[in-house]
Structures are given as structure tokens and as C-alpha cells.
């Protein structure tokens, strides 16, 4: 769990002041309405008026703030992900599905929030405020023959009040849907929102990207990040500007002193500059050891190839963002990070090197591993397998003592790209495997038949169409009348996430 700064000081001031005003307006308003007697009608009316003016002043200030800071863009409605967000609230949230959208300082609201808040701002609040003003100045307006009977004015005001109250209830409830039930409220109080590591990483990265754009444009580019090519262009612009005198740019200084690893590499592929964070992530102690060394130093052969591909791509003028790469630290341990980098140009526009930043994601990867272990810990209950068999994400299989498939679930079929069960039931598990893999698997299979339970970690599979996939596999014996009659287990697809890792391991074994 990490905390990310989401709300600025003014927003927090505005939000809580507005919350207080709306609540007190409701309390006094419904007394004026005749719903109950609390402080006396006269006091209720006078306080309601004062509160109303405070509310109006706050709205004017906030609109000014929204306009001048560009924060109004947060309210521009977007249909993108709207369906996903609605679907999340209707179904996903009950199954602990991840939030489909993420919160950053530049994109605080999910599409549903955008729509709701826009509705509040252009529909409900104007109705309440305008009808309230007409109510307040009714006598003068009647003199001008500008209004007729008071009843409709009062009714509109009441309708607005009910809608606003309904919003408040829904709003307060939805604050509990954050990372933890109180995360959102804490965030509104302190400005810092608790997030899962993964969300925090993305939020940080988004924040960083938009900051880069803003630093170049001199305006806030909030929300515009979604436009295709926008970021890349802006980033290039930033770097172009930075390229003139990288030493003195504020971005560089900031990167050098931040928890983001910074690096600059010359055209020749040698490190020219790294910051302390970079050193820490690579577990180096002496900067001098690194400066001047080649980018491919201390990498696996495949890693060398991958990194040179990236370096050449950037030196050719491309910008990369958020590439997920592994690193081998000085002590030989593995780490994972995302890398964003961009060419460095001299005054004439010639590319003289590249620079960028890395954000560590090792904890996330470790968390994924922990999850895996947790799944494995549940292997010995039948209920667990029953659930697994129904799962959309986990493939289930059962193989008889003789080595022929007895049962697989839909997910298994999907992962192996089979069309129907008939294609696989009754076939031997050696099907579609390399000899090497089969030998390894048979060893494990025999162990399980002997009564062991084996969490195998990452395994390679050949799918029906010939493509390769990776999954984690766990196998346990099937016991009937005290005798082991077969093997059952589950697989979790890791193709995307574990591809690099697996490749790396294999290289090491070689």
C-alpha cells in the first residue's frame, strides 16, 4: 500500500466547506420547509440565507479556481470506460475485481463521477441556487412582474434539495469503495490517498507524464493525456527544451533528488549520469563504477539484446514510456522496473544520447508471487477445486494414473486454445510438449502419484495453434479408497507477466 497525493489544498478546503454548507443548508432548509422545529423558524430562515450566501461565494470562488487552473477539465464528461465503470459497480465490485479506472491528481474522477459531478454543477446546483435566489428576492421580483406564484419556486427548490440529499447519501457511501473503506475520506482530509502498489505506481507515472507535458506547455494538460500521440509529442518537446542545458533544468534536478531512478546515456551507450535512486535500485554503492560503463554491462545475454534494441530505438528518435523490464543487480538478484526514456539532443537537434527514468515495481512482482503461494496453500480441499473448476481465470485439469486427461475446465481449454473438451479428454499429457518439457513434467507427475504435492512454478505450454504460453502449475494426487488413482491441479496463466522472467531463468540454467 502506498499513498499518492491526489487533492490539493484548495480542493480540500472547498470540498469540506461545501459539505458543511450543504448539510447546514439542509438542516435549516427543511426547518423552513416545515418538516420539523429545531432552532425556530426565524433563526432557520436567517441562517439559511447566510449559509446560502456563503455557498454562492464558495461556488463563485471555486468556479474561478477551476477556470484559472484548468481543473474544469476534470468535469468534461467522457464515455470512455463509462460502461466498464458502471459494470464494475454493478458486478465487479462484489467479486473484488480491480477498479477499471485509476485516480491521479490530473484525473481524479472516474467517468461516472465526471458525469455525476457535471450534472450537479450544471443542473442540480443551478436549480437550487437560482430558485433560492428567486425565493429570496421574490418580493422585488413580483414588483417587476418577473415571477408569478411562489409555489413553483418553492417546489423547484425542494426538488433540488431532495436530489442534493440523495447525492450526498450516494456520495458518502461510494467513498467506502476505495482501496480501504476509509481511504477516500482520509484522502479528502489529508490529500494523500492510499492505493494498492500497482495503482500507486500507475498514478505516480501518470502524474509524472502530465507534469512533463505541463512543464513544456506552461499550461496544465490535465485530461488531454488520453489523446493519441499527445504525450509523445509533448515529451519530445520537453526533452528538446531540456536538451539545451540538461544540467540546469528543474526536471532533472527533481529527478536526481527523487525516488525515481534517473539515467543519462551517451550515444556510445555508456552511462553519463545516474542518480542515487538508480544506484540504490541496482544495489551499486559507487557512482564512479557505473559512469562510463556500458549499458549492457551486468545483463543477461537476452537482457543485453533487449536493452540495445531499446537504446537503438531511442537513439533513432523514438520515445519509450512505461516499458516493463527486468534488471540484474550488482549482487546478482533480480529486480523489475518500468522505464521511460527519450533522446537527448544538442542545440542543432542532433541526437547525442538518451535519458529517462525508472520506477521500481519489484514489490508488485513479489506480491504476485505471494498470491501464488496463497493459492497453492488451499490445494487440499475439494471445495477449492470445485471453485477452481468454475473459475474464469484459473484452468483446472485431472489426469488419470495412466497419464490420460480425464477432465479439464473451460479456462484450461481457452488457455490451450482448444475448441472443445473432446479434443483433449482421453489424450495423454505428453501431447503438445517438447521432449525436454515432457521429461521434466513426468518426473513431477510420478512424484505426485507417489503422494507428493508439487507447486511447480512457471511452466511452458504449447497451445493447439503452436503458440507458446506460460503458466504456473500446481498438482496434487487424487486419492480414492486410500489409493492414488490420478493427479489433479490448476494452472494460472502467466504468459504476459512471466515471459521475461522465465526466459531469464532458462538462460541462467544454460
Amino acid at each position, binding site marked *: 500500500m502506498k499513498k499518492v497525493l491526489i487533492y490539493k489544498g484548495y480542493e480540500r478546503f472547498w470540498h469540506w466547506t461545501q459539505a458543511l454548507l450543504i448539510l447546514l443548508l439542509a438542516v435549516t432548509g427543511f426547518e423552513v420547509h416545515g418538516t420539523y422545529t429545531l432552532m425556530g423558524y426565524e433563526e432557520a430562515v436567517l441562517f439559511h440565507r*447566510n449559509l446560502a450566501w456563503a455557498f454562492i461565494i464558495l461556488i463563485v470562488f471555486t468556479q474561478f479556481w477551476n477556470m484559472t487552473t484548468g481543473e474544469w477539465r476534470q468535469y468534461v464528461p467522457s464515455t470512455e470506460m463509462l460502461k466498464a465503470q458502471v459494470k464494475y459497480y454493478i458486478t465487479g465490485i462484489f467479486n473484488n475485481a480491480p477498479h477499471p479506472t485509476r485516480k491521479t491528481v490530473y484525473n481524479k474522477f472516474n467517468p461516472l463521477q465526471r458525469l455525476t459531478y457535471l450534472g450537479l454543477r450544471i443542473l442540480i446546483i443551478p436549480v437550487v441556487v437560482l430558485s433560492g435566489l428567486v425565493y429570496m428576492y421574490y418580493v422585488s421580483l413580483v414588483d417587476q412582474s418577473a415571477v408569478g406564484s411562489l409555489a413553483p419556486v418553492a417546489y423547484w427548490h425542494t426538488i433540488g434539495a*431532495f436530489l442534493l440529499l440523495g447525492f450526498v447519501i450516494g456520495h458518502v457511501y461510494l467513498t467506502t469503495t476505495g482501496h480501504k473503506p476509509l481511504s477516500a475520506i482520509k484522502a479528502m482530509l489529508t490529500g494523500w490517498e492510499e492505493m494498492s502498489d500497482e495503482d500507486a505506481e500507475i498514478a505516480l507515472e501518470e502524474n509524472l507524464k502530465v507534469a512533463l507535458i505541463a512543464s513544456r506547455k506552461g499550461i496544465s494538460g490535465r485530461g488531454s493525456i488520453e489523446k493519441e500521440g499527445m504525450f509523445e509529442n509533448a515529451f519530445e518537446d520537453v526533452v528538446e527544451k531540456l536538451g539545451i542545458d540538461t544540467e540546469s533544468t528543474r526536471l532533472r534536478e527533481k529527478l536526481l533528488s527523487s525516488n525515481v531512478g534517473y539515467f543519462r546515456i551517451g550515444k556510445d551507450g555508456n552511462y553519463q549520469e545516474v542518480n542515487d535512486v538508480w544506484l540504490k535500485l541496482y544495489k551499486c554503492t559507487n557512482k564512479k563504477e557505473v559512469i562510463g560503463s556500458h549499458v549492457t554491462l551486468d545483463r543477461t545475454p537476452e537482457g543485453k539484446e533487449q536493452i540495445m534494441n531499446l537504446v537503438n530505438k531511442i537513439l533513432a528518435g523514438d520515445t519509450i514510456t512505461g516499458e516493463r523490464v527486468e534488471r540484474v543487480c550488482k549482487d546478482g538478484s533480480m529486480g523489475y522496473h518500468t522505464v521511460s526514456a527519450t533522446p537527448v539532443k544538442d542545440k542543432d537537434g542532433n541526437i547525442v544520447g538518451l535519458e529517462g527514468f525508472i520506477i521500481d515495481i519489484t514489490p508488485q512482482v513479489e506480491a504476485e508471487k505471494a498470491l501464488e503461494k496463497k493459492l497453492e496453500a488451499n490445494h487440499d480441499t475439494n471445495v477449492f477445486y470445485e471453485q477452481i473448476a468454475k473459475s474464469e481465470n484459473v484452468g483446472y485439469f485431472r489426469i488419470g494414473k495412466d497419464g490420460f486427461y480425464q477432465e479439464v475446465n473451460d479456462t484450461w481449454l481457452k488457455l490451450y486454445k482448444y475448441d472443445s473438451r473432446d479434443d483433449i479428454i482421453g489424450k495423454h499429457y505428453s501431447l503438445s510438449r517438447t521432449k525436454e518439457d515432457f521429461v521434466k513434467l513426468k518426473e513431477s507427475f510420478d512424484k505426485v502419484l507417489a503422494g507428493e504435492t508439487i507447486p511447480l512454478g512457471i511452466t511452458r505450454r504449447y497451445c493447439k495453434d503452436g503458440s507458446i504460453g506460460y503458466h504456473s502449475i500446481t498438482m496434487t494426487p487424487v486419492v480414492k479408497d486410500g489409493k492414488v488413482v490420478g493427479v489433479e491441479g490448476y494452472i494460472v496463466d502467466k504468459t504476459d507477466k512471466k515471459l521475461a522472467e522465465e526466459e531469464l531463468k532458462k538462460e541462467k540454467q544454460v
Partner: protein
Amino acid sequence: MYDSIFVAVNIIQNPMKKVLEIILIIIIPWVIILWIVFNYNGDKDRDYYPSSEISLKHDSIPVDHSKFAVLQKDFKSGPEVTEACLSCHNGRGKEFMKTEHWKWHKVDSIPGRGTFDLGKKNLLNNFCIGVNSNEKLCSMCHAGYGYGDKSFDFNNQNNIDCLICHDGTKTYHKSNPCKGPNLPGSGAPGVDVNLSYVAQHVNLPKRNNCGSCHFTGGGGNNVKHGDLEMGLMSAHTGLNGEVDVHMGVGKDGNNMQCTDCHKTHEHQISGQLYSVSSSNSNRATCEECHTGSPHKSKLLNDHYKTIACQTCHITEYAKLNPTKIIWDWSTAAKMDKNGKPIFKKMLPDTTYTFDGITYHDVEVEYDSRHGTAVLQKDVKPEYIWFNGTANHMLITDKIQDTTKPVILNPLLGSYEDHYNPSDSTCPSKIWPVKVMRGKQPYDRGNMTLVQPKLAGKIKGSHALWADYDWDSSIMAGMEYLNLPYSGKYGFIETQTLWPLNHEVSESKEALQCADCHNANDSRLKNLTGFYLPGRDNSALLDNAGLLFLILVLLGVSIHGFLRIVGSKKQH
């Protein structure tokens, strides 16, 4: 901006700094705003502008009438005095003879009906019903001598009773022709009045002059108006403003005279009484002194647009003496078991039910001559929309609906008037009124109200109070007016509406917001057809709103429950 981004990466935070930030950004603004909201109140000041800003100028008579030779005489009759008065005040007789105090009628227009010659002389009410054929009694309050029937000479200026208004001795009074020897004749000075003494001590009219008639209308103190009673002129009550803030006679009372407000020019006294008037003219108003924005509070001044001053400032009437609120003539003319009429018998009842409404803390009187009368003290006014004009139920007008009370002087006006005024100079306002309820005779054949002959002491004169026979009484009254009578009479419920103007309370006693803006017990609960904040709401809207809130609550509860169940399953 950079700061926020890169501070974001810095996960270590100072908890003290965090708390300070919350205090600075949230708590302090809350405290400041709450302090301002709950303390700033320019509108709370309910003071009137100081009364020193309102100045009164009293005229005085600069001469000593007791020295005038023309008054050094033993006057035998009223007209003799008048002749002496007019010998100096020439032209005043002709002037006075144009006024309603003399003519008991005036040319007035009823909106939508045209111009009529209307007044006490020909309009009916639900007290003693009408003047015609009863002039001998009624002329006790006529500013003239000898108005006994329709043969009275309204062109003889010597018939003017100057002294009833200008007596400065408080010894002058008129005789009651229904009581005692019938000697002096209608409207004549009482036999014990020393006319010379009174004539030598005349003055401008004071409360006791006006009050001698206006406080006792309807047959007794405060019976008719409810807001005009003898207490207003009794110095010994020592009241300051408890009954009427203007006319208190105690040490701190304002001791204002009637004519301070009812400004008079050439004997034309300002002020309209809507039981006998119908147009919005010649009214005596609060604004003449207090202006149309007398409060410091804008909120209160805004109310002036729709609320008459009287509504908030006359909270109750009949504060000292009870006023008659119900007069049921249908029970009159009944005898006791000996066949004798019953005179003024107080009934033990303290409640009385009339037309489905029960009145509490009332005095109930029975008299064979008058029927049943209900009197009440400290009465709360009823409220109507009123734009300063009135209609009248003339004796020739047909009764349309006998199931509903007939309003004899419907006061005109409505809520719509104030944003779409029928008379832009006087849009309707909410006014407090005394509603006088009663049952009085009507002609079931011709469907009109009738004028019975009531007053009289001689048996066989057809007077109800002598013969106790409704039929002959009505026949005599209608014959007197040359109007048809079918011979079939009945009793019908009637109402008269008396806008209240007197017994103005002290400002601290004025109605408070919640007296009207109240969902349960609003003073205006019977005045419907418009939206009064705090009193009214749309049941449909409120129920829909409540349902909406319940559905939202239910929705989030179910959603929350499912989430908890979902997360338990995952574990």
C-alpha cells in the same frame, strides 16, 4: 506543480504537519464560516424607527366660548344651541350636511357593479339588522336631532347635533327613546344635560366624543367593532400600550386622539368602515406616519407587500371587554313557560357551537327580544385577502345559496392580486378581520334579506320587541321600505367582516414568524390558495422526495451488504 508530483513519491510524511494542514485547510475555515453565518444578522433588528421621528400636531381652540354673549343663554333644546353655533360658524352647517355622519349614506362604487348610494341608511348588517323603521333607536347615534323616521328633514341645518362631537365637558349625551319617558324625541339631548354649560365648553373632538357612539355600536360597549371599547378612553385604567399602543392613557401611553389618524378637513373625517363602504378611498392608514418600510429589517419590510401592518400588530382584539361574535336572531321571540318574555339572561354555557365550529371561553346571553348572543374576550382575528374594496349584499339582491352563510359585505381581494393586481394602487394584502356570524331573517319566497321592524315599546306597533311576532315585524319593516314580502320567512346564516385597525399591540407583542410560518398551527391555516413557506408543502413532492431518499439508502445498503458478502467469499 512539480512539488506536488514529487512530494507524491516521497512516502514518508510528518504526521504533525498533516494534522496542522487539516486544521488550516478544513477546521479553521469551518470555524470562521460558522461564526459568520451564525452571528452576522443585520436582519434580526426588529426595532421601529424611533417614534420621535413621528411628530403629532394637535390643534386647539384658541378662544374661550364661555365668554361669548350668544352662548350666555338658557338653551332649551339642541337645535337652539346649533343655531347659536352657526351664527358665528357660518357655512359649517352646509359643510357638515355633506358628510356621512349626517346623511348616513354616500355615493360609492362597488367594483364590477357600478355606483350606488350606500350607507348605514340602507345597508343591512347582522347586529340590529338595519336602520329603517328603527330610526328612533338608531338615531341615538345620529349626529342630528329628531331623526325618528324617513320624514326627517335632512336639509335643516339646525337639526345638526354639534355637541355630540364637540362637547368638552364629558357631560353631554343623547337620550334613549326606548328607555324611560319618551319625552325628548329621537336623538335629542338627555334630559339631565345642561346645554348652556356644554355649549360654553366646546372643544375639538376627543376620544370620548367619537367613542360615545363608536365604542358602543351594536348595543353595548365593544359589542360591534371588537377593537373599539370604552377602556380606550378611561384614564383610570392607566393603560400605556397594553390595549392599544397609540391610545394608551397611562403615564407612558401615547394618548393619541382619534382625529390624529382620522384626519379631518371641512368635517370630512378620513377612514373607511367596510361594513358600509366599498371603495378604496379616503382611508386612514398606518403608512401616513410609519411609511411603507417601518422596520430596520428588510425581511420584515418585504412582508409589507403582502401583509397589512394590522395583521402582525393586532394580535388579538376585545382585550378589555368582550365583543359579540355570534348573534342568532332565530331564537328570538320565544317566551318563558309563563308566556313572559325573557330579558337579558346569561346562560351558564362557556362554549357555543355555531355552524360546526365550537367557540370556547365565551359568554352566552339570551333575550327574547334579540335571541342568542355569544360574546368573547381576547379574540384572535381571522384573516382574508383584502384590496380595499368591498361588495355589499343589498336588500334587493337575491340570495343564491341558502346552504352557505351569506356574507353581507364580501371584502374583495385575492393572492393573485399581488403579482397581477386588479388595482395597481392597492394590491391585496392579508388583513385581520373580526368575522361577525349570525342568523337573521330572510324572505323565503323572494329570496332576499328582509328589514324587520324591531324597536318599539307599544304593543300592536308591529315592533318585534313589543309584539314578539316575526311575521308582522318583517311585514311592517318591508312595507316601510316599499319592498315586497312574500309572507314566508326563514333564518339564514350571515357573516359580516370587520377589518381590524385598532387595539394595535406593542411591538414586542407583535406576531412572530412561526405564528404564521407553521405547518401545524398557523394563524393563516384557513387562508389557502397560495404557498406560505413553513406552512405549505406539496404532499406529492415531499412523499416522492422521501421515497427517493429511502430508495437511495436502500440501494446503498443492499450494495454495501453484497460487497461484504462478496469479500467474505473471497477470503
